[in-house]
């Protein structure tokens, strides 16, 4: 064949950004997130022991890589003798639940506000902008703590609170990308073609900002998981005896100078999950050519 490339074809083929390293990173992120989803879904069937069953004589048993491993509790036991691996698996469930529900709630609020403000402009947009600024001025951790402190801790309250607090980045990104897309001529052409506003928003604008929003979703999910852990660590998140990773670290804190692995195991789990979500988000950002900065 000749070496003439059809110009259009060439323009369409996107150069792989970042090379092999980027693909490895994205793949690793995908594997971590996929594994976490599986573990969370299958938790009741894959736990080796009852995560809530206490066995006080078997307190603080070391994990398999340390001397004194008993051959039964792979990651050892906690200060009440509960199987650490089983609690870790149930903890993944809590993290994923909080992550997903927060993203759904905050995504709905933020995307609606951002798209409407960005598309309508004028006073509507001023109102949206004011809402965003107000929200940003609220210290999230403190308000979430106060809400839980006031109404008592429960998993659903925590999920709802975080969802109502973490929509700002969705709104900012949805607003700025909508404003960009809105002034493109294909939106004008759709208007001239007789399309309704709803059609234009759903069919012309949303598909073209979706990639940016997908990246924001990963960032927010990671943030929500970290916040839940932090709140639980402070004792005002998920109530005991639920095995939130943050709560596990808090409960183990008193023993950490003698048996450091009790905080290492849930901490590493938390780090790896959040790292995986962020890796996936980073990969998405590059593959879709999206951006998540305001």
């Amino acid at each position, binding site marked *: 064949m000749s070496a003439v490339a059809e110009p259009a074809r060439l323009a*369409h083929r996107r150069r792989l950004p970042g090379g092999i390293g980027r693909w490895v990173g994205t793949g690793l992120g995908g594997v971590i997130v996929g594994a976490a989803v599986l573990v969370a879904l299958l938790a009741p069937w894959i736990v080796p022991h009852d995560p809530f069953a206490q066995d006080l004589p078997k307190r603080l048993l070391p994990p398999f890589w340390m001397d004194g491993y008993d051959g039964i509790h792979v990651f050892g036991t906690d200060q009440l003798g509960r199987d650490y691996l089983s609690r870790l698996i149930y903890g993944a469930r809590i993290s994923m639940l909080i992550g997903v529900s927060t993203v759904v709630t905050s995504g709905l609020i933020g995307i609606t506000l951002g798209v409407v403000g960005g598309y309508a402009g004028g006073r509507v947009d001023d109102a949206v902008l004011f809402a965003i600024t107000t929200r940003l001025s609220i210290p999230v951790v403190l308000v979430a703590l106060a809400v839980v402190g006031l109404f008592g801790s429960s998993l659903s309250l925590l999920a709802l609170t975080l969802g109502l607090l973490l929509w700002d980045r969705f709104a900012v990104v949805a607003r700025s990308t909508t404003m960009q897309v809105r002034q493109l001529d294909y939106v004008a052409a759709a208007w001239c073609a007789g399309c309704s506003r709803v059609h234009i928003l759903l069919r012309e604008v949303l598909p073209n900002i979706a990639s940016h929003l997908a990246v924001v979703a990963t960032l927010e999910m990671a943030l929500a998981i970290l916040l839940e852990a932090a709140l639980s660590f402070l004792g005002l998140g998920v109530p005991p005896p639920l095995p939130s990773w943050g709560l596990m670290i808090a409960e183990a804190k008193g023993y950490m100078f003698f048996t450091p692995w009790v905080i290492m195991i849930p901490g590493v789990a938390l780090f790896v999950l959040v790292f995986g979500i962020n890796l996936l988000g980073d990969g998405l950002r590059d593959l879709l050519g999206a951006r998540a900065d305001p």
Partner: protein
Amino acid sequence: MTADSVAAVAPAAATPAIDIRAVRRIFRVRDAGRVWDADRAVVAVDDVSLTVPAGGVLGVVGESGCGKSTLARMILGLLAPTAGEIRVAGRHLATLDRRARAALIQPVFQDPYASLNPRRRVGDIVALPLVAHGQITRRDIAARVAEMLTRVGLAPELARRLPGELSGGQRQRVAIARALVLKPSIVVCDEPTSALDVSVQAQILNLLAELRRELNLTYLFISHNLAVVEHVASEVAVMYLGRIVERADTETLFRAPRHPYTKALLASVLTPEPGLGVPDVGLGDTLPDPTAIPAGCRFHPRCPVALEKCRSIAPPVVDGVECHLA
């Protein structure tokens, strides 16, 4: 006799395709990042009236920022005029519902990269006006899309492609197909070839001319390129800082321009004739600023023949020319 009585008496053929009365558009702008500043008013289009007869081609020329695109967007219904009224085929644009408007008037924009939704297939893009119009079966839509694509010189198989797979010229053909699929009578072409290479520009201009003859279309053709306008338009309106300063049929305007600005514009057209050198347009280095329109004749700060009265007294319009000296 008022326009209404004309429309009542004469058959549709005598109704102008586009009829604009005293249209004005003011934008409120705020400097970026300066929330504490008050908005400033920018008069983009100032008291413009014009008509385009059915089947005619009105070329609108002028430099960037003169208001020609704002005018086009008002006629397309994308922007509401601040004052004045716009009629399309004898009907008030403001009272038309979106489907009726779409069936009458359609756009072709400048940048074929921004005017096609990158996430939709070519077939869906061309079908959009038909889908929005409703009452047409899917099979009919597919047939009309294929017919339209062929008509603008594209293979019907391209319907399955995404815009990203097409060249600039092909994209502009898709945009033209979308504009014509509802069989409108008026097409507003806003700089339709400015983003294209000369060889492709010629293809698109030829296509637009062909389609106009066959479908008996009316064009409002906006361009900054006088050579292109001379080639396609039957009448020309020259805009300067939001006003039409000269209006004439194409031959008269190019043979005997009367407004000093039109003369300068014509003088700056560089035809491929070696040895003529670059003309001196004599406009000085002040440039028009739509946020600070001068008193009197708005062209006087750049005008090489301005008189004292041009500084303070707004010029009258005589035979379509807005100038004290015409």
